């Protein structure tokens, strides 16, 4: 983990961490080594410029400025640390309290936090400095309390994200107390981002402290920190600039060390996104697929997605015309979502994507992703399964929709809002103008999903990729959402790539269905053939495992025996062999290629011609 984190940190990150270590070591040892030198008054050497003996020159009393800067590290870092600890503790307490208290009290505190966050930090610090008096103590308190609101807000946002999750509800039902929920469930789950934010706040505190001392509101003589040294140096800046430059540099470097280290850690644990996925390496030999048609809206050939030690998508080829609806079905972990994410260029490092061809609207999507952001942002819409995690819980729905056109089309606030309301009513959300002003939790699941679709079509896309958009919905709403997708498709001639594990739904929505198993397409067939004329044993099993309105209620349900293979440890031969009623020795030795059959159909099975009655698929086995 640590090694991988370092690798992801890159040269800048490593230098930031090295700098951080240096600052901390200096804070610990500098006063022990250079204290005397820093305090030695030398009347013979007043206000000298930099020299071999005094790298940063001397001050009004002839003291060595460089030594003073080094010695001041401890006080500067220490006081900033104290202020940060104070601010973080106060912020954490207030922010976490909102999670423990009921909704109403939580909202009050939230409002209070929002108000205080709006004050500029320095102003707040000055205000506190006046109250607490001038001096180091006052400054620590001032900066601490100025840091607190921002931290409280972050804590609150993170905590409310975790608090909405079901395991919190489950713990409450099980009788676990509020305080215990906070310490056992909420805090551990938000600790990492909080630590990172605290580190970054530390950088800010260093700067703030330097400013206060510089203004004479912080550390008082005879003590000195960087801010003070900077102030003293500045008075002599015309005589020799080094006296001001060196303390200034120290402040900037130390603050940067903390800030950047925070960012680096954040990146290493995956809090910040840095889309730099690589594309274009020569991939392993492609399975025998036909080249996608030339007029395709989307043309993918031999798409592979890999992570360190595993390749969950192993050579997917597909094409999609304007206005066409293609479905992808398959079990959990078969690579459906990764395929979709790879097409949208949303795979994050260490994930790696390669393809022989990846074209969307005629543009080659391979290579640097930032070159394609605009096209992807406006012409491709993704709708995800879980609208709650895709919507920001603390921002009004309308505003989130508006954001899309504001960033991609630079629309002004009012136009963007009007369009958001328009799109919400287009996805049949009643009273859209009022609903736009609500928060996501005030929407029902189906409404959230429709809002997500509304967000997807804010910018007139040419392709909508919907990943399990109706999995969480009940039949009537599912029907509406599916209808909605159909309408958008036919009205605006939008292509639809529809991902689902529900064969019935896919069969209903799509013209063509791709069946995925263990990272590959094993069958490509018209939706109309799904029920009766599927060739691949896996497709047939999927169709047979769906309970319907005639299922015998006294028998256990049909399940496909066993589990899909571990993508880290795929068997040789056909990946489905262990669960396949038709498997032979050949299947266990040779992986069947995806062969083209009659017009458009493809199947990857050695025994696709063999017919098995559905009933011969194992009934009632527990997987």
């Amino acid at each position, binding site marked *: 983990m640590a090694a991988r984190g370092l690798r992801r940190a890159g040269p800048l990150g490593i230098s930031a961490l090295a700098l951080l270590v240096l600052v901390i070591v200096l804070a610990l040892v500098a006063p022990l080594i250079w204290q005397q030198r820093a305090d030695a008054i030398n009347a013979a050497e007043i206000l000298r410029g930099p020299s071999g003996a005094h790298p940063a020159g001397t001050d009004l009393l002839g003291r060595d400025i460089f030594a003073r800067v080094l010695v001041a590290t401890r006080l500067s870092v220490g006081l900033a640390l104290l202020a940060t600890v104070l601010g973080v503790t106060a912020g954490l307490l207030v922010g976490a309290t909102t999670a423990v208290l009921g909704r109403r009290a939580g909202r009050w505190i939230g409002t209070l936090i929002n108000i205080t966050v709006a004050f500029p930090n320095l102003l707040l610090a000055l205000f506190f400095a006046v109250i607490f008096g001038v001096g180091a103590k006052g400054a620590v308190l001032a900066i601490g309390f100025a840091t607190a609101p921002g931290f409280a807000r972050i804590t609150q946002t993170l905590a409310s994200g975790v608090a909405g999750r079901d395991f919190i*509800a489950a713990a409450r039902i*099980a009788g676990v107390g509020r305080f215990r929920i906070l310490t056992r469930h909420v805090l*551990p789950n938000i600790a990492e981002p909080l630590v990172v934010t605290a580190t970054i706040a530390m950088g800010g505190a260093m700067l703030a402290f330097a400013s206060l001392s510089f203004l004479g509101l912080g550390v008082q003589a005879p003590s000195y920190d960087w801010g003070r040294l900077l102030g003293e140096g500045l008075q002599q800046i015309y005589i020799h600039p080094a006296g001001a430059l060196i303390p200034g540099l120290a402040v900037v470097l130390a603050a940067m060390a903390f800030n950047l280290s925070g960012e680096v850690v954040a990146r290493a644990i995956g809090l910040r996104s840095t889309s730099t996925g690589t594309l274009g390496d020569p991939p392993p030999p492609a399975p025998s697929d036909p080249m996608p048609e030339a007029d395709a809206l989307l043309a993918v050939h031999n798409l592979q997605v890999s992570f360190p030690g595993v390749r969950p998508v192993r050579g997917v080829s597909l094409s999609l015309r304007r206005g066409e609806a293609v479905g992808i079905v398959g079990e959990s972990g078969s690579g459906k979502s990764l395929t979709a994410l790879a097409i949208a260029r949303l795979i994050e490092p260490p994930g790696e994507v390669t393809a022989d061809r990846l074209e969307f609207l005629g543009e080659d999507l391979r290579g640097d992703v930032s070159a394609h952001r605009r096209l992807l942002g406006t012409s491709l819409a993704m709708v995800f399964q879980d609208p709650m995690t895709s919507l920001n819980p603390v921002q009004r729905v309308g505003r989130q929709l508006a954001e899309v056109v504001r960033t991609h089309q630079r629309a002004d606030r009012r136009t963007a809002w009007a369009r958001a309301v328009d799109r919400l009513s287009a996805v049949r959300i009643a009273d859209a103008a009022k609903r736009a002003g609500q928060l996501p939790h005030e929407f029902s699941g189906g409404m959230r999903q429709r809002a997500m679709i509304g967000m997807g079509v804010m910018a007139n896309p040419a392709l909508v990729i919907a990943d399990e958009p109706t*999995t*969480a919905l*009940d039949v*009537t709403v599912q029907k509406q959402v599916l209808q909605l997708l159909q309408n958008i498709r036919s009205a605006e001639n939008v292509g639809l790539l529809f991902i689902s594990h529900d064969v019935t739904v896919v069969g209903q929505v799509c013209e063509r269905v791709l069946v995925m198993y263990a990272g590959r397409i094993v069958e490509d067939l018209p939706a109309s053939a799904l029920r009766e004329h599927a060739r691949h044993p896996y497709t047939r099993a999927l169709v047979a495992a769906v309970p319907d*309105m005639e299922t015998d*209620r006294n028998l*256990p349900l049909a399940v496909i025996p066993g589990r899909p293979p571990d993508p880290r440890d795929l068997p040789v031969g056909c990946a489905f062999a262990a669960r396949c009623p038709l498997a032979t020795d050949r299947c266990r030795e040779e992986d069947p290629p995806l062969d083209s059959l009659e017009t458009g159909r493809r199947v990857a099975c050695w025994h696709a011609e063999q017919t098995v009655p559905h009933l011969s698929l194992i009934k009632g086995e527990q997987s």
Partner: protein
Amino acid sequence: MRALTFENVTVRFGSRRRGTVAVDDVSLVVPAGQVVGLVGESGSGKSTLARAAVGLAPLTAGRITPSARGRHVQMVFQDPYSALDPRMSIGESIAEAMPSVDRAEVARLLELVGLPADRARDRPHLLSGGQRQRVALARALAGNPEVIIADEITSALDVSIQGAVLNVVRELQRRMNLTMLFISHNLAVVRYVSDIVAVMREGKIVEYGPVDEVLGDPRHEYTRELLAAVPRPAH
């Protein structure tokens, strides 16, 4: 096992004037040892009704017995990925729901839902969605509840796994004679596990009766609509 009774239950969110009534004067009985399947459209109040029964939604009016206090009613949630604390082993999650921690009981519960007892030390990320739902079921059983509420517990699962979880639910229910409120949007699934079906719409129960009667001969317009919306393959 006891019956679960909702008497004139109303749940309102927000203020009297601007708020919404999620559950509107609902009376509903889940008879002891039976499964009532609750169906209805999104936003019709099914989950709110369920959450009211476990004290996660405030009652504006009415009464629910057994009361939410004292772990009599336990619930299994829809999303297997948010149901378990990622920072805790599944054994700890189950033990947390017990009056006092009992390792042997954790092992027994895991076996009961068809998971090897030695997986108790695993973190949730090592489990498939179906396995997580079984752990969630074990956790619900850990408090020795009188009633179990299952809110869309299979809708996030694959068909092949869904079958296995439903088999476990059905088996446990019969073996332990559980009283259960089973919420699902999938009529075929509800039909498979339930003895009684209740249909909810806009906060009200619009139809209630034995599963064969309601699905075979629906009386309410909306129930007929629901039946018509069951996805059927094209062509």
